[in-house]
């Protein structure tokens, strides 16, 4: 019933994180007693979770279990019915965060050039235009992304648009980055490219990242830990660490350890799907 201790155990059991072997990490995000229902469907009932700092967490689970709902609640897009979510003990409105939508076409502003799309959050923070420009140029240079940012979003490919979305989320130097199935509208070739880009960005910035994915391979490939959710009311089915070193490449996909981790995640997933 109560999976909270289990999730805490998963962390405190001290599975060594690839980044901070040995060091004890304070959790970055603490979710306590989260409850949410849509109509008669209970999505979350007294749900607890700790998200460790500086790690990339993939969220994976059966359809409709509330993967996206989880990050939407944590990112403040949907109000929870009950529960508390703190970031280093602070509320969401006290921290800087970034959010990347699945539907980049509808999330970007088509009337702004890519450059102005990226710097828009700075405008909301009342940063002066000259500094906005400088900081945007700095971010682009820092990430080493080669894109013509004078284009309007509709003049770009899907992958390029989603890259712009990600940069828009990063411009505020967020403490935490949320991505809701960011690559699911892209073709496979572009998805592979974007995985690489996201990994590079994560290695560059080390920002705590929560990625919702519907593709198990992608979830495992990108993650430091895979959060496997049960059917709703969602509980933590497993919080599996992925130990493969970064940068991960195509070779990682066939690495025995990686394959084992993926198989384990699939097992847990199948078990949860079958549980009626």
């Amino acid at each position, binding site marked *: 019933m109560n999976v909270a201790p289990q999730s805490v155990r998963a962390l405190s059991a001290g599975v060594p994180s690839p980044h901070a072997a040995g060091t004890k990490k304070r959790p970055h995000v603490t979710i306590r007693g989260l409850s949410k229902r849509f109509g008669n469907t209970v999505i979350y009932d007294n749900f607890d979770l700790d998200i460790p700092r500086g790690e990339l967490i993939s969220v994976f689970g059966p359809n409709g279990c509330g993967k996206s709902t989880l990050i939407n609640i944590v990112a403040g*897009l949907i109000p929870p019915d009950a529960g508390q979510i703190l970031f280093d003990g602070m509320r969401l409105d006290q921290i800087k965060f970034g*959010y990347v939508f699945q539907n980049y076409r509808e999330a970007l502003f*088509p009337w702004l050039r890519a450059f102005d799309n990226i710097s828009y959050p700075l405008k909301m923070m009342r940063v002066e235009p000259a500094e906005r420009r400088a900081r945007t140029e700095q971010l682009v240079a820092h990430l080493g992304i080669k894109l013509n940012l004078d284009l309007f979003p509709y003049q770009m490919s899907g992958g390029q648009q989603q890259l712009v979305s990600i940069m828009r989320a990063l411009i505020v130097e967020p403490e935490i980055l949320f991505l809701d199935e960011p690559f699911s509208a892209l073709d496979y070739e572009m998805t592979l490219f974007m995985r690489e880009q996201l990994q590079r960005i994560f290695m560059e910035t080390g920002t705590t990242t929560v990625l919702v994915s519907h593709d198990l391979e992608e979830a495992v490939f990108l993650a430091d830990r895979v959060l496997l959710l049960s059917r709703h009311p969602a509980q933590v089915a497993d919080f599996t660490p992925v130990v493969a070193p970064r940068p991960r490449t195509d070779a990682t996909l066939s690495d025995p350890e990686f394959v084992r981790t993926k198989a384990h995640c699939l097992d847990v997933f199948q078990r949860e799907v079958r549980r009626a």
Partner: protein
Amino acid sequence: MKSDAFKPFLPLVGVAGLLAVWALATSLQWVDPVLLPSPVETGKALWKGMDGGALGHDFVKTVYRTAASTAIAAVIAIPLGIVLGASEKVYRSLEFVIDFFRSTPASAMFPLFLILFGVGDETKISVAAFGAILVILFNVAYGVMNARKTRLLAAKVMGASRLRVLFDVMLLESLPQTFVGLRNGVSLALVIIVVAEMFIGSQDGLGHSVFEAEQLFDMPRMYAAIFAAGVLGYGLNLLFLLIERRFVHWSGK
């Protein structure tokens, strides 16, 4: 490759065809030449009328009235449409009233406006503005209401205030639909203005010109005036399309 080069000229085929059939019909006397003058005769009447004649004056008058009514309609309907569209509850409570008057033929309001404004430009312009307001209002409100939810959420997530969301997102999101409203509005305004010019004691305007030519049985002049009205309607529509393409470059993309 070769066929592509001709593509821009394809619309001219229809025009040439129509003129050919028209010329044939008159020269072979399929139709009574009194009822349908030849294209050459009509063209001459059009040229004479527009080149310093009465038709040119009528044309300018109709352009002025249509432009004035559309401008008034836009100034009233666009801000109102944004306010209504921003709150679905407000719009839903007024939807029936708007739909009802939008469906009421504006020409049925002539007598009422005659009493209110007397015989003059004010009546024509205000009836046309009344018709155009409802069309534009309806489209602007829907444009605002149908703003992509994701885009609104995105702005909210980035810390935009409600007012910011309204100006930075909703307003721009509604622009393509606003232009649909403006194009329909100006077409409707022209229809109402031309009808008004025919019947409410008018001294000028294209409607007056058509009506007077009919009374005098001056058929070439009548066709010339009809043709001038057609050019005006097409031109206004094209003008708004060009403005839209220039300022709402993302429309339909």
